[in-house]
């Protein structure tokens, strides 16, 4: 089985966001594999272990993203591909990212592509379904269970708290929701092995893509932090009185009840 996992290098979720000049400051920040993409990598490895085949992890970005690819290799992926856009493109949007990924995958033998359902930075969740559409394969988003049984793929997906049970077939793209699995930590031998696993680096030229083909459709014009909330009130006194006061405040001051 040819399994692809799409990953994105993102800010560690512990990081505070600092904005200056309308941009997020990245200096000194810790980066991780987008948490939802970790579920994708784990699921890809489990599928390979159950059905045989090969797991290739794929990312877009600059050289820094090699760190996340090596981590996925250390978890157990077999090969990694970096589409390096650093020198050619100033900006990427979902349209451009999906175009690049689909361009790479279009002449590959693909059985299943697994991605995170959303990246914790940009948060649009568009790239997975866009890639599936460009490759003209089916997709299922926010999955919490995946079982491949011969030609039938049985999936449970989360839809706003409810579970949808469905069946489909390969080739397929799925996006991982929390609860799909428990991503493993790379083992020390895994980390050692990962250093020798193949990591291919491609640029736009290698994909036969012209910069104009991936000109962004949307443009970020500013980034700002949410307004600081004024310090709240911690109520005092007997608990029963505090509760009374709280209900009263919600009623008269906050007017939400």
């Amino acid at each position, binding site marked *: 089985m040819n399994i692809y996992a799409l990953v994105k290098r993102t800010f560690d979720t512990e990081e505070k966001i600092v904005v200056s000049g309308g941009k997020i400051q990245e200096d000194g920040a810790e980066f991780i594999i987008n948490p939802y993409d970790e579920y994708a990598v784990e699921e890809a490895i489990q599928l390979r272990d159950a059905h045989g085949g090969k797991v290739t992890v794929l990312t877009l970005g600059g050289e820094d993203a090699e760190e996340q690819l090596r981590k996925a290799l250390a978890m157990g992926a077999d090969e990694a591909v970096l589409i390096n856009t650093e020198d050619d493109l100033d900006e990427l949007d979902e349209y451009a990212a999906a175009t690049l990924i689909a361009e790479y995958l279009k002449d590959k033998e693909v059985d299943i592509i697994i991605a995170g359902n959303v990246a914790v930075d940009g948060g649009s*969740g568009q790239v997975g*379904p866009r890639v599936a559409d460009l490759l003209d394969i089916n997709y299922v988003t926010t999955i919490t269970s995946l079982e491949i049984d011969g030609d039938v793929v049985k999936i449970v997906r989360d839809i706003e*708290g409810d579970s949808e049970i469905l*069946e489909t077939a390969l080739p397929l793209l799925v996006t991982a929701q929390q609860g799909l699995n428990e991503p493993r930590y790379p083992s020390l031998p895994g980390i050692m092995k990962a250093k020798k696993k193949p990591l291919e680096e491609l640029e736009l030229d290698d994909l036969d893509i012209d910069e104009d083909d991936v000109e962004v459709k*949307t443009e970020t014009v500013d980034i700002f932090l949410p307004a600081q909330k004024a310090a709240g009130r911690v109520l005092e006194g007997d*608990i029963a009185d505090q509760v009374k006061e709280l209900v009263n405040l919600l009623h008269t001051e906050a007017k*939400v*009840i």
Partner: protein
Amino acid sequence: MTKKVLVLGEAREGSLRNVSFEAIAAAKTVANGGEIVAVLLGDTVADLAKEMVAYGADRVITVEHPHLKQYTSDGYSQAVMAVIEQENPEGIVFGHTALGKDLSPKIASKLQAGLVSDVTSIESDGDEHTFIRPIYSGKAFEKIKIKDGVTFFTVRPNNIAPLEKDDSRSGDVSSLAVDITNLRTVIKEVVRKSTDGVDLSEAKVVVAGGRGVKSSEGFEPLKELADLLGGAIGASRGACDADYCDYSLQIGQTGKVVTPDLYIAAGISGAIQHLAGMSNSKIIVAINKDPEANIFNVADYGIVGDLFEVLPLLIEEFKKVKQS
């Protein structure tokens, strides 16, 4: 220049979701006086058309087909693309719901268009529209513009106020016949898990529990309070990891992002990842034994105390207020 804007209405268990009306209001903002065309898809949806008009749609197109009874990206994209080909809209608005998130990228891809997801507000200056959307799960916001092509965006529930309902408005309702074929996904069953059908992302009140809830039974008083207030139950990652509740309830940087009118955090310490998922709620109430808990830094009102003591009292007090 006016824009013709298409709005996808979305029904849940036979009634239109609020986010559909919010999407109409958002569509009006970018239409600049242009026509708002609502689209309703399903096996029988014509009955819902009047309500879309009452909330501001000028015209409604229905596509009814047995294959549209349940959402699939194949079925719905065929129907939506047929409407787009007929209408040639300059704008398209979906709700940023499970359905909208799943479908909108596919439509955008087919149109080779940009798409701004999860919009919480819009600044308009004539034909120039700047969309504001949360990034880093609400730790920051970005202002984004669509450079060319169709103005396509999804709106986050609970953020853009719908227009006032006006039952005297009238609008043309027409149906479009579309051949829906080759569905690659077969839905077998939908298992309902959410509290009384109140969806977490659209709920006006969310009562969320953390590790302090201590067990799955510990969620009972939270459920009772949520039911009483017509709200939904949520949880922190800690509570989900400890198996007190299902991951579908998780609020935070991984998990759902919610912006209710009232967020009650019970036994939640307030890790930065959790705050990302709820700190844009209008009013936050924190109940925690630990006076140093970080959740108090974002709370509008805090009670330092044991949630198992506070919640029953709170339920009684809300009952009294309801009765009076």
